[in-house]
């Protein structure tokens, strides 16, 4: 009986933790998107006002953003043409859609004049803002739902296994 209670408690605890983890996934994605947005705004200002070359701009941004973006920009400072490849290999909480959207910027970075590049960055920033707006609404309901599902499914599994 004692072992049954411990087993049941462990099952409930694990499902609750899984629920909390899944509930926080949207928040982590939003945080990474915000960090990326911050880095793109920095990139835009480096191109527009500081008039740095791309490797210089990437190097400056690498010092001002949080992991894993700092390594991403550090690698780009060494190979500025690899934006699209590097972004698809980035290990973060961003979804594949976000990465594909940001990777499109690689086609215009380093091509054309500063205005073309700034317009491309603005376009990606607008898409990120849209995604962030949708995420804010979705996160509220999803976080509550995943947490409740975690607790209740743990109880359900425990009762089914008793």
């Amino acid at each position, binding site marked *: 009986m004692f072992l049954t209670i411990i087993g049941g408690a462990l099952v409930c605890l694990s499902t609750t933790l899984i629920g909390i983890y899944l509930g926080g996934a949207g928040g982590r994605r939003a945080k990474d998107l915000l960090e990326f947005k911050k880095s793109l705004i920095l990139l835009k200002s480096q191109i527009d006002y500081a008039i740095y070359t791309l490797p210089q701009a990437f190097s400056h941004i690498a010092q001002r953003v949080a992991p894993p973006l700092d390594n991403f920009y550090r690698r780009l400072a060494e190979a500025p043409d690899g934006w699209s490849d590097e972004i698809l290999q980035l290990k973060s909480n961003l979804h594949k859609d976000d990465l594909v959207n940001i990777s499109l910027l690689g086609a215009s970075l380093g091509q054309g004049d500063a205005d073309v590049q700034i317009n491309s960055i603005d376009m990606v920033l607008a898409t990120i803002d849209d995604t962030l707006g949708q995420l804010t609404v979705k996160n509220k309901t999803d976080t509550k739902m995943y947490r409740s599902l975690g607790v*209740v499914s743990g109880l*359900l599994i425990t009762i089914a296994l*008793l």
Partner: protein
Amino acid sequence: MDITVVFQIAAVGILVAVLNQVLKGAGRDDQATMTTLAGLIVVLFWIISHISDLFGTVQNLFQL
């Protein structure tokens, strides 16, 4: 018949009802329906042998 089965079924009913409300609140009506269905199937698995016993008893009682 062990009385704990009745309590288990009652608990599953309550928890499935809560899950149903949570999923419906999050706008996931499809998953809510599937959860209710899954709960029903689990409970049916538990009681299928008891139902079989019941029919057997009824057959014997009325010598059908």
